[in-house]
């Protein structure tokens, strides 16, 4: 009996060991542990064993059974593991193939720069205001101290709609609108399209301006300089310096042109800044008291500063865009670079 049991056990363990997949293993299970399996048969054979030997034989049969069951279980786990590995191996893909799905689009560089500018000035307490692009002569010129037939009109080539309406030549028109309706303290920026009737290699008849206006008690040229320095350092780089030069705009007095140290060479002098180290970026000044009074703000009590610059120009400097026309051609190969 003992020999028979050892034989069955060894045979079973050998079969389990040699099984290569779960199906074979199952066959082994049925062969030995199934209802009519060989180990089950041993249990049935107990009937023929003398009564006093039964506990001992029973124990031995159970030992054989446990050994086989344990081996089966171990092998099952082993095979499952191997099969999973094999499946994963079979499922291998080329991960360098391109992704599928909709790729993101891009914002236009003018929008990106405009948003950046709005954030910078919002941080200094400026709110955004917009105004009409087809503007009355009153707001675009007259309230800005440029009466009809004034020589300052030659500073800008104007598109006229009729005698009293123009395509605004400057976002400063929004200033006049705000000053006639709001009371100080005023601190606004006005981004938007402006129009000048000149069209050549370096000019676009449409471009985008960004105007700023602060009116309150005790606003000084120093505040203007500080504000523009903060702006220039945020939009270009921390080491950017600002320089004011005397100039003329009808609606500011004193008026200044503002240069910043060249973003390319940081002031050392290069091709972009024509070797000067400085790049002219905007016009600004103290709001002309005449303008304040015309707009209904008492110039004896209040003062202000205003500035205006081209968003296009800032974008061109920041991104190294060689030609303003590229901003309006909308070539996908250009637009896609601003993600």
């Amino acid at each position, binding site marked *: 009996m003992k020999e028979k049991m050892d034989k069955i056990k060894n045979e079973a363990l050998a079969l389990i060991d040699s099984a290569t997949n779960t199906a074979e293993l199952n066959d082994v299970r049925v062969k030995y542990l199934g209802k009519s399996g060989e180990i089950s048969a041993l249990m049935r054979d107990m009937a023929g064993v003398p009564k006093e030997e039964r506990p001992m034989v029973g124990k031995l049969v159970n030992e054989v059974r446990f050994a086989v069951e344990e081996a089966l279980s171990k092998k099952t786990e082993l095979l499952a593991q191997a099969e999973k590995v094999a499946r994963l191996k079979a499922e291998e893909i080329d991960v360098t193939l391109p992704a599928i799905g909709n790729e993101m689009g891009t914002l236009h560089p003018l929008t990106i720069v405009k948003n950046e500018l709005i954030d910078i000035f919002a941080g200094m307490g400026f709110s955004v205001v917009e105004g009409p*692009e087809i503007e009355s002569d009153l707001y675009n010129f007259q309230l800005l101290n440029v009466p009809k037939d004034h020589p300052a009109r030659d500073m800008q080539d104007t598109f006229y709609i009729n005698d009293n309406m123009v395509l605004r030549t400057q976002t400063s028109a929004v200033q006049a609108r705000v000053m006639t309706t709001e009371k100080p303290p005023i601190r606004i920026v006005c981004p938007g399209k402006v129009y000048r009737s000149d069209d050549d290699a370096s000019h676009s008849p449409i471009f985008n301006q960004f105007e700023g206006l602060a009116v309150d008690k005790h606003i000084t040229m120093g505040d203007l300089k500080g504000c523009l320095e903060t702006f220039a350092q945020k939009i270009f780089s921390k080491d950017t310096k600002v320089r*004011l030069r005397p100039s*003329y705009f009808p609606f500011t007095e004193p008026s200044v042109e503002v240069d910043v140290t060249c973003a390319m060479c940081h002031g050392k002098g290069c091709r972009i800044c024509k070797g000067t180290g400085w790049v002219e970026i905007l016009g600004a000044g103290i709001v002309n008291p005449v303008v304040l009074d015309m707009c209904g703000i008492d110039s004896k009590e209040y003062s202000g500063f205003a500035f205006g610059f081209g968003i296009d120009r800032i974008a061109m400097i920041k991104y190294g865009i060689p030609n303003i026309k590229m901003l309006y*051609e909308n070539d996908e190969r250009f637009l896609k670079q601003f993600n």
Partner: protein
Amino acid sequence: MLAPISWLKDYVDINVSPSVLAKKLVAIGFEVEDIIYQEKQVSNVVVGKIVQVEKHPNADRLRVTQIDIGGKTLQVVTNVPVVGGEVVALSLDGARLANGLEIKTGELRGVKSEGMLCGLEELGLTVDSVEGQDEKDIIRFNDGTPLGENALVALGYNDVILDVSITANRPDCNGIFKLAKEVAVALGTECREPKINYKSVGGNVNDDVSVEVKNQALCPRYMAASVKNVKIFPSSQTIKSRLLAVGIRPINNIVDITNYVLTEIGQPMHAFDKRELGGNKIVVRNAKEDEIIVSLDGKENHLKEDMLVICDAEKPCAVAGIMGGLNSGIKDDTSEIVFESAKFARDSVRRTSRALNLRSDSSARFEKGIDFGSQELGLKRALTLIYETGSGDIQDGIIDVKVDYQKTREIEFTTRKIADILGCKVPKAKLVEILNKLGIEVKDNGKSLVAVIGEDRDDIVGVNDLAEEFIRVYGYGHVKPTLFEYSALTEGSKPSKIKFVDKVKNTMVACGLDEAVTYSFISAKFAEDLRLTDDDAARNAVKIMNPLGEALSVMRTSLTHSMLETLAYNKTHFVKQAKLFEVSKVYIPKSLPLEELPSEVETLSIGMYGEGIDFFFAKHAVEELMRALGKNAEYVRSTRPFLHPGRSAEVLLYGKSVGYVGEVHPDVQETYGIDNFRVYIAEINLDEVYDEAEFETRRKVQPFSKFPTVDRDLAVVVDDKYLAGDLLGAVKAAKIKYLTDMRVFDTYKSEQIGEGKKSVAMSFSFACLERTLTDEDVNAEMAKILSALKRKVGAKIR
């Protein structure tokens, strides 16, 4: 303004280089746009001496010369009959001449030639530019001229000219002498006064001419002087060279004097031939309506009543400040002249000049504004030049008809006020010193200061102007940056509408579209290009009076035209796939011609073509937009003439169209040059979609079931005319309680289904907030759905 440095030096000592001078002028507010070195107009042309002349071995008319250019002798073949010892201008290898010709060493009939002998023309000069040369011959120098020297320098053509941009507030600086005053300030030196030195011979100007000014508002001052026994001859080389340097062609001594004074003093002058002044009278008056004058340029001008003319006893002789009449000019036999030196109102000259399209150096100058100070100075300077050049006999006296005007103006101010404007310390002594240097007298009355402004500085009217005068000389480097130290704190904010537009743009970007920005004005042909019907309101576009051209002449009423052009641009530039959007204004007039400003409507345009792009891709962007804005849009077939009739939809919100999405009509694609592939566009009126209150309201979170969701599919057969939207609409209208989601996932036609019919497969999801739904619940809901579909669209279950 062009300012030759040699001319400036008449008035101010300049001991710095032109570039240093330019920098100093920029620092005080005079931008120097260019520094023109005359001697650099052509390069590599030098003085050379002919040391040997031989006959050319192969050509009778050519000579082979050896030319010494200072330490080096070159061989030059020429057809000019030169002889040994002559000193000539020789262009060398690499020289680029004024006519564009580039000189290269080469062979002429087999003999090496290392340059070319030059005449004036090759150097861009005329006989007026330099002295002692013959226009038709080559240039010849005196023996002893340094060999190898730049030929232009040797000719004395070596001035340096500053191109200075004079701002509109400083018309007083549009003259060499006036600019010299600023140069003196920039250099910290003194400026000399113009030389006034002439003797009159007797007679009396009042015997020769009388002046009557009928409109003193437009002519506040009119001065006249008389010169007899006038001799007409060419001006001196100095005058000719200086005029040429500032771009004025020399004509004769009298005309040149008027131009010289205009350039130097900034005062336009006019010289009348006295024979043409009928009745020996000058009357300054408004023109009569439709009065005619033929101007010096031969143009017939029809005048209007608001224009000012200079007349004799009968007829107009000049358009005031702009141009003389055809016959009033100086002729070779002119023997008596009357000089005019007047101040005409700048607005009037500007208006008249533009209305008549008549321009001159004089009108350009008057338009900028002339101060009271320069009529007398100009006239006396002209008489001095007449006297110095011996051009005629100056008669005694000057006629001066003028309004009463204040010669000086006073502005009271304090250093404190100036410091408040500038935000920097203002030392009183420095302030007074600088203003004095600028010709502004300052009186100190203890409590405050008083600035006395002369008649040449109309631009200084208040303390701000004084602050500018001070700081532009003191230097902006003294202004220290501050950030609103003494003013109120304000909150920076973005209006709701801008945030809305940002959201629209971000949604488009998320849909894979790239933002475009196009011009606001488009071709007036857009309506034809888009095949718009005659009564389409989109045809009513605002026109620009002075457009850059037909293609940019009307303000767009829709973005469609621009988008199609942009897609065409990409296609012709080999871009395989384009997916674009733009958010811009369109301009909708309330009436035409415009009586009030038009509405500017924020509009979204979408345009795309390329692999994988179809109607539904374009519609996806529109749907995502609506979803982002919490809107439920409906889609019905569109009949827009520029869209494919079977592949286009109107986008409806609350039953009203807010735009369209669709494939472009093949005929329109052909018009735009984008045929043979499919193009999709959409346009949405964002103002119609935008509702500030709604946009600012945060949508509240909706509860969702934690119990299992039950999904059921249903396929029904309907008439072909019904669209998926009709079926979904029918179910939606039935208000099915537990329905949480539904969609159409398939439609197809087959013979089996029958002619004019189609099968639509839909899936539905059900859930309940309170409990798990039973089969009975869902069956009841499905029955309601089917019943609704039967009722509304005649659906039969498959």
